C-alpha cells in the first residue's frame, strides 16, 4: 500500500528583544552561567511578571507578516509541569486566546507552489538550560541549571498539518525563518537555538482523509535534522503498519548523529498541563490603531520582494526566490545593484562564486570578505569590458583575501583586458603561423578549428585579450 505522510510543525522562534519577556534581564547568548538573572526570572517567592511591550509588538508583526488575524483581546496562561529548568514549574504561555490566529504562508517546492496554513502564533517564555555531568540526564550524577535563557521571549508558530513531505516541511521552516529575519524580530540563528521545531508526523493510506496516529519529535534545530527525522519517521511508521502493527502516539527524540528517532514518552505519560489564566498579568488589549501602526512598520516581505525582482530586474522566478530567501542576501543584492551593476549579472555572481565561497568557509553573507560595494564595482568592470567574465573569476578570488578595490587589484595584477587591436595582433599572427594544421582545417570549413587558435592567443596574452576581439581578428585574417 502507498502511504501519504501528514506533517505539522510547531516552530519556536526566540525574539531578539534586548530584555527578557517578564523582567529587565539581558537576553544575550553565551554569557557566563546564571549572570543574566534576577529574582523575577529565577521565580523567587513573591515575584511578579511584567510584560515586555516589545514582545507583543514583535508577535503582532510576526502575525501580520504571516497573514494572521490579530486577536484584540489576548491573555497569558500558566502551563504547569515540573522540570528543573523551569523555576516556577510553570511556563507562562498562551492557551485559548493566543495573540495571532488563522494565518498562512506560500512555499515553493520542487513540485510547485503550496500554501501552508498557520493555526496560531503565541508568546511564551523560554526555559533555562540543564548542564548535565554526563551526556544525558539519566546517566548524570548531577546537573547544573543555567537560568540565563529562562524568560527569553519566544514565539510558538503552529502550522496546520498541511505538509506531506520532508522537503515541504523544510521549505516551510525556511520560509518562516526568512519572514522572521525580514521583519527583524529574531536572529534566527539555528545553531544558537533561536529557531527550533517540534514536528508532528503521521501517515495514512494515499487518498484517505482520515488522520493517522501521530508522533512528535521535539527540538529539531537544523534543516537537515528536520528532513532526516521526518524521512526516518515516515519509514518507521510505514514499517510498523506494514507489519500489521499500530503507531503509538508518543513523543520521540531525534538523534542527528545516528539519524534515527527514539521513544521518549507515550501519551499515557503525557502531562496534564492544568492550564489556568495567569492572574498576575492583565489581558493584552490591542487597538486597531496599534495593529495598523505595526503593519505600516513592516518591511517589504520575501514574496513581494521576489515579485519586484522578477518584474523590475527580469530575474527568473527561481533566481528571485533564492536571492530573497534571506533578508541578508536580498539586502546584499540590492546593495550590489545600487552600484549600477547589471541586476542579472549581480544575481549570477551572488548565487555563484559568492555563495560557493561563503558556504565553503561557513561565513555569513553579512560578514562576507567581498562586500556588496566591491562586488558591484567588479561587475561594473566586466560591464565596461575592463575585464572579461573569466578574468573576473580570478579578480574575485583575489578580492576574497585582498581588501583593495577591484580596480586596484586589476591594475596591480595586470589583469586589465587587452582591447587594443595592435596589442593583440602579434599574438594572433603568431598563432596563425604556429598552427598551420588548424588554419588549414578552418579554411577547409571546419569552423570549430578556430577555437584552438583563440585558445592559443588567450594563452599567449595570459587570458587578458578580449575574447570577442580575438575571435573577430582571426576570422578577418583567415578570410
Amino acid at each position, binding site marked *: 500500500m502507498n502511504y501519504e505522510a501528514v506533517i505539522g510543525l510547531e516552530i519556536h522562534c526566540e525574539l531578539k528583544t534586548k530584555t527578557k519577556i517578564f523582567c529587565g534581564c539581558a537576553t544575550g547568548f553565551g554569557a557566563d552561567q546564571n549572570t543574566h538573572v534576577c529574582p523575577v526570572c529565577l521565580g523567587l*517567592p*513573591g515575584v511578579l511578571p511584567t510584560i515586555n511591550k516589545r514582545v507583543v509588538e514583535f508577535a503582532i508583526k510576526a502575525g501580520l507578516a504571516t497573514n494572521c488575524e490579530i486577536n484584540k483581546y489576548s491573555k497569558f496562561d500558566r502551563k*504547569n509541569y*515540573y522540570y528543573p529548568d523551569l*523555576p516556577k514549574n510553570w511556563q507562562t504561555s498562551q492557551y485559548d486566546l493566543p495573540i495571532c490566529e488563522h494565518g498562512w504562508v506560500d512555499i515553493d517546492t520542487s513540485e510547485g507552489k503550496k500554501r501552508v496554513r498557520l493555526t496560531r502564533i503565541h508568546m511564551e517564555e523560554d526555559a533555562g538550560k540543564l548542564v548535565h555531568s554526563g551526556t544525558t540526564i539519566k546517566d548524570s550524577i548531577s546537573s547544573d541549571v543555567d537560568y540565563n535563557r529562562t524568560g527569553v521571549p519566544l514565539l510558538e508558530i503552529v502550522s496546520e498539518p498541511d505538509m506531506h513531505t520532508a522537503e515541504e516541511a523544510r521549505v516551510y521552516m525556511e520560509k518562516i525563518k526568512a519572514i522572521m529575519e525580514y521583519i527583524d524580530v529574531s536572529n534566527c540563528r539555528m545553531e544558537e537555538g533561536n529557531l527550533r521545531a517540534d514536528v508532528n508526523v503521521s501517515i495514512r493510506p494515499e487518498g484517505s482523509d482520515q488522520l493517522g496516529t501521530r508522533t512528535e519529535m521535539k527540538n529539531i534545530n537544523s534543516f537537515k535534522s528536520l528532513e532526516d527525522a521526518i524521512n526516518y519517521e515516515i519509514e518507521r511508521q510505514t514499517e510498523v503498519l506494514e507489519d500489521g502493527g499500530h503507531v503509538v502516539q508518543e513523543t520521540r527524540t531525534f538523534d542527528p548523529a545516528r539519524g534515527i528517532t527514539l521513544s521518549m514518552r507515550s501519551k499515557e505519560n503525557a502531562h496534564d498541563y*492544568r492550564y*489556568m489564566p495567569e492572574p*498576575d498579568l492583565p489581558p493584552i488589549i490591542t487597538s486597531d490603531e496599534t495593529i495598523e501602526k505595526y503593519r505600516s512598520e513592516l518591511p517589504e516581505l520575501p514574496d513581494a520582494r521576489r515579485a519586484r525582482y522578477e518584474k523590475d530586474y527580469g530575474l527568473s522566478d527561481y533566481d528571485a526566490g533564492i536571492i530573497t530567501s534571506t533578508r541578508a542576501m536580498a539586502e546584499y543584492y540590492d546593495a550590489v545593484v545600487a552600484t549600477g551593476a547589471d541586476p542579472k549579472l549581480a544575481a549570477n555572481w551572488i548565487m555563484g562564486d559568492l555563495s560557493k565561497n561563503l558556504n565553503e568557509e561557513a561565513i555569513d553573507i553579512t560578514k562576507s570578505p567581498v562586500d556588496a560595494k566591491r562586488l558591484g564595482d567588479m561587475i561594473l568592470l566586466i560591464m565596461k569590458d575592463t575585464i572579461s567574465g573569466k578574468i573576473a573569476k580570478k579578480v574575485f578570488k583575489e578580492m576574497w583575501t585582498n581588501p583593495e578595490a577591484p580596480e586596484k587589484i586589476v591594475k596591480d595584477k595586470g589583469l586589465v583586458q587587452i582591447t587594443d587591436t595592435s596589442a593583440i595582433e602579434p599574438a594572433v599572427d603568431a598563432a596563425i603561423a604556429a598552427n598551420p594544421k588548424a588554419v588549414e582545417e578552418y579554411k577547409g570549413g571546419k569552423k570549430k578549428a578556430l577555437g584552438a587558435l583563440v585558445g592559443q592567443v588567450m594563452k599567449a596574452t595570459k587570458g587578458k585579450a578580449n575574447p570577442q576581439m580575438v575571435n573577430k581578428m582571426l576570422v578577418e585574417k583567415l578570410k
Partner: protein
Amino acid sequence: MSLFEKPAHVLHDMLQKKEISSVELTKDVLARIDAVEPQVGAYLTLTRDAALAQAEAADKKIAAGEDVAFLEGIPGAIKDNICTKGVKTTCASKILDNFVPPYDATVMTKVKAESPVLLGKTNLDEFAMGGSTENSAYHVTHNPWNTKCVPGGSSGGSAAAVASGTAIWALGTDTGGSIRQPASFCGVVGLKPTYGRVSRYGIVAYASSLDQVGPLARDVTDAANVLNVISGLDEMDSTSSPSPVPDFTKALREDVKGLKIGLPKEYFTDGMDPEVEKAVKDAIEQYRSMGAEIVEISLPHTKYAISTYYLIAPAEAATNLQRYDGVSYGARVDGADLVEMMTNTRTEKFGEEVKRRIMIGNYALSAGYYDAYYLKALKVRTLIQQDYTEAFQKVDVIMCPTAPTPAYEIGSMISDPLQMYLQDICTVPLNLAGLPGISLPCGRSSKGMPIGLQIIGKALDEETILRAAYTYEQSQNYHNEMAKLGGEQA
C-alpha cells in the same frame, strides 16, 4: 501609660516634639516583648539589634532637624510572607525554613523609606492558608485577650503583636479575611485595601487574584497613616492600580450624617454568635443615632462565596506553590532521582492544610474538571461582584460582622477544616470582588473577647470606610484599651 501602649500617631507627635527618643521607645517595646512574647508567640524572627540600630539612626535624623516621616523611629512588625531583604522570610513553612530574600517587597521599600524600626517577622498560617495561625509550621500564636484562644489568622502574629504591645503597627496580608478576622479576634483595627491599591510585588503569593497587603493598627488613624505609606502604582506589579492615591488621613473626620449604610441580610445568618450579632447591631444603632441612614440590602450570591473562594484560591495556590521543589532555594529532601527529590521535599516540608489546598487546586484545574469547577467559580465570582455593584448604587458602605464568632479556643476547630472554612463567610466575598474592608472593635463577648465590625467600601473608596470607622471609633473607647496578659490580669 507606657510607651508601648500608645498608638503610632501619638508616638509620632512625641518624637517630633522630641519628648521621647526612638531608642527609648524601641527599648520599651523590646522590654514588652521580653515580658509577654513567651505567652503570645507573635514572632517567628526578632531582629533586636537591627531594630536598635534603626532607632539610633532615626534619632540622629530627628535630631538633625529633618522632616519626621509618619513611621520614622516607630517599631513595627512585618508578616513573614512579605519579602524582607536579608531577613529570613519563611511563610511559617518548613519548606522556606532557610530562605533569605535577596530583595525587598515593594511595600518594604516604601516602609523603609520612612526609616521605621523593624522588630521582626510575625507568625502566620503556613503560606497564609488558615484563619487561626494554628497552621504555622513553627508554633501557635496565642490571643493576648485570652492565651487559650487563637488570635485568628492568617495574620495572627501581626494582630497579636499589635494587640499585646509587642509592636506599635504591623503589616499583614489578606486573601480571604486574613487581616480583618485576626484584627477582629484581637481587638485591633485591620484594613484590607482595594485589590490593586497596594503592590503585591514581594508578597509570597497565596492566591494572586485575591491577595492584598494592609495595616494592622491600634486605631483607625494609624491604619490610615500606614495605608498612606504603602499605597500606589508599582511598575513591578501589573495588577496594581494607576488610580491616584489620596491622603487617607483627610478622611479622618467625625461625619456620618446622611451616610447610607447597607445591611446585607445574607450576612446575618444562622450560626452567628448572638453576642456578635448584638454588638454589631448596637454599632449600627450608634451610626443611626449619629445621623446615618440604614438600608437593608441583599447580596444574593453570598451563599456561593465560600465554595467559589475555595476553588479559586486553591487553584491559584496550587500553581503558585509549585516553585517550592527543592531545586534552587528553600529546603530539599534528597531522593534517588529528581522526581523523588521533589516529591520527598514537598511531602515532608509542606504542612497538611497546604497540601490539602494544593490537591483541591490541582483537582479543580485538571483536564476534564476545569470547566465544571474553576471556570464555573470564575463565573460565580463575577455574579458576586455584580451583587456589590448593584448594592453600591443604593448605599455608600456595607456593614456586617467581621467574623461570625469571637476568637475560639486553640485546637477546637483544627480537626474540622470545613467548619473552619465557613468562618470566612463575612470576609471572603470582598476579596472575590476586590473591594476594600476594614475591621474595628465594636464590643466584647461575655468572656471578654473582642468583637469586630466590618465596613465594606466601593472599589478604591477606602476614604469612606475610614471616615465611617473613625466616626464610630471616636464615639467608643475600645481603641484605648489594651489586652491584659498573664500576671497583669486583675
